[in-house]
């Protein structure tokens, strides 16, 4: 069929009448790095919820590589090749970064395989390599609870990659990070973009400028406009609903 990795067709999600997503249409090519921006409450996280099976669309459908995602459970969707990083880092705090990565890296995730299987040589090397990529080699064997916020963000991105998904969904990866950490994460995502399709949701305009090629603006549950960063920034509608506000938001 097409080389679209993701197609969202007329998706509406209503929570007791409130439409978090409203007739949303969206599509994305394989290999693309797409940034989605939009004010708080625009429906960005809900958008990811629909793709990952956490929320069922009230109407419309989502296709991943041409496959309808409706009524598939979260773990099935994940196994199809979609990885997700949450808005607040969700890593397993009682496990070490190495163990966190190993769980994601595990190729066979059913009960028996997990019970009998041991990490294979290649898997071990993948984990060691990832620890280096995300800069956590020295902290690989302390509980993740002791990591800083930024380190957890990086660890969760690492877990995502360990899954070796085709599509990465990354929700606000630099929230709460220092400028330096933000740049690191940006570079990490750019490296990953060479071999993955990625959707990044972000607020931080500096960061968006660093990584963005194609930007989609979400507003009140629908796509407001789409284009390069410059096009989007000069769009009067966008300026009105979004770019006019971040000063207040950040302050």
């Amino acid at each position: 069929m097409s080389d679209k990795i993701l197609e969202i067709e007329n998706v509406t999600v209503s929570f007791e009448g409130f439409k978090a997503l409203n007739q949303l249409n969206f599509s994305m090519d394989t290999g693309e790095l797409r940034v989605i921006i939009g004010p708080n409450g625009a429906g960005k996280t809900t958008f990811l919820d629909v793709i990952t099976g956490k929320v069922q669309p009230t109407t419309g459908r989502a296709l991943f590589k041409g496959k309808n995602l409706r009524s598939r459970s979260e773990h099935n969707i994940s196994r199809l090749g979609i990885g997700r990083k949450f808005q607040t880092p969700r890593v397993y705090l009682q496990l070490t970064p190495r163990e966190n990565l190993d769980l994601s890296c595990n190729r066979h995730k059913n009960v028996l395989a997990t019970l009998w299987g041991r990490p294979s040589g290649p898997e071990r090397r993948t984990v060691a390599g990832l620890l280096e990529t995300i800069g956590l080699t020295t902290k690989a064997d302390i509980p993740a609870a002791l990591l800083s916020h930024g380190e957890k963000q990086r660890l969760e991105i690492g877990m995502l990659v360990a899954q070796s998904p085709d599509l990465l969904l990354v929700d606000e990866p630099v929230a709460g990070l220092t400028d330096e950490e933000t740049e690191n994460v940006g570079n990490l995502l750019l490296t990953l973009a060479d071999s993955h399709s990625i959707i990044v949701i972000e607020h931080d305009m500096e960061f968006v400028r660093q990584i963005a090629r194609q930007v989609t603006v979400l507003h009140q549950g629908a796509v407001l406009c789409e284009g390069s960063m410059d096009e989007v920034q000069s769009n009067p509608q966008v300026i009105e609903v979004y770019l006019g506000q971040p000063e207040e938001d950040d302050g």
Partner: protein
Amino acid sequence: MTHTAATNLPLAKPRKLLWETGVIAVITLICAVLLPFVLPTFRLKFLGRFVALATAALGIDLIWGYTGLLSLGHGIFFALGGYSLAMHLKLQIPEGELPNFMVNYGVAKLPWFWQPFHSFPFTLVALFTIPALVAAVLGYLVFRNRIRGVYFSILTQASLLVFFFFFKGPIELFNGTNGLKTDKDLIFGVLASSNQAQLVFYELSILCLLLAYILCRWLTSGRFGRTLIAIRDDENRMRFSGYNPTGFKVIVFAVSAALAGVAGALYTVQTGIISPSTMEVPFSIEMVIWVAVGGRGTLIGAVLGTILVSIARTLLSEQFPEFWLFFQGGLFLIVVTVLPDGLMGWFKNEGPDQMRLLLGRPRKVMTYPSLAEDPEVEYERQNLRN
């Protein structure tokens, strides 16, 4: 190089394992070989019971300590194991006869589900398989529907009530509240309450505890064990990494129930009775307390907690029989408020620190000043979790 951390770890692990194996082997030998000579018979009997109970505690630790599911209904599985073995003993009578109590209640024919318990091999398998199956079915229904946390606990307690009335109700089937007494029954031609048989039960209890420990140790290490901890930490996150937690939880619940079944069987023959009172609420809560006192999430803690609490219970009941429940409640409060990680947790964490403080040395600090403690981030974490 970056690989030092990776290579250090496998080196440290076998040595630790060797130590653990050594210590456990010594303790097992002391209990199995030495104690029968030194302890007076009646004390040994008590110890045998506690050892049997510790097997159940390991099960509780598996499901609660490691997987984060608080079961308040393990009395069901304990009783199922106990009744299975007791039924077999009740059938050690001449062909065609019925157990005494059935005759008293005018039962003419042995009920169909009693029939297979004539067979010892069947009984042996049944006493852990029946609890495991019941747990698997119950667990599947509950976990598939994503019932968690306090709702799971309430459901297990409700099931406990159902089983309580099932065993108590039809008096001609299980002898109602009186339960099944195994004192005067024969096992392999020997009186079950004889010293000879009791010594065998004692040794069997130790063997079962050892095997259960090895099983739990295996389950909680490696990938499977880490999966359980991850489920406890953030089950929903697991789904987005491609894991379906349902299967894991069902297996662990079933294994945990099987251990309770074995414990119930061994406990029954050592006390000489199984009755619906093991399915009363306080007993299931007591199992949880053993683990809480010892330290959940540590297998040694579960065993230690059971033995210590049970010894305390015995001593206290000898002195003031009516005070046990009162004491039990107090113990629970103390553990929850003062020792949230139990004795083992205290040894591991605060213990060394407090010792150091007493000696006037600074505390060892292992954390980084981290944004993670930021109340805002914490708030968000709580609220975004589903």
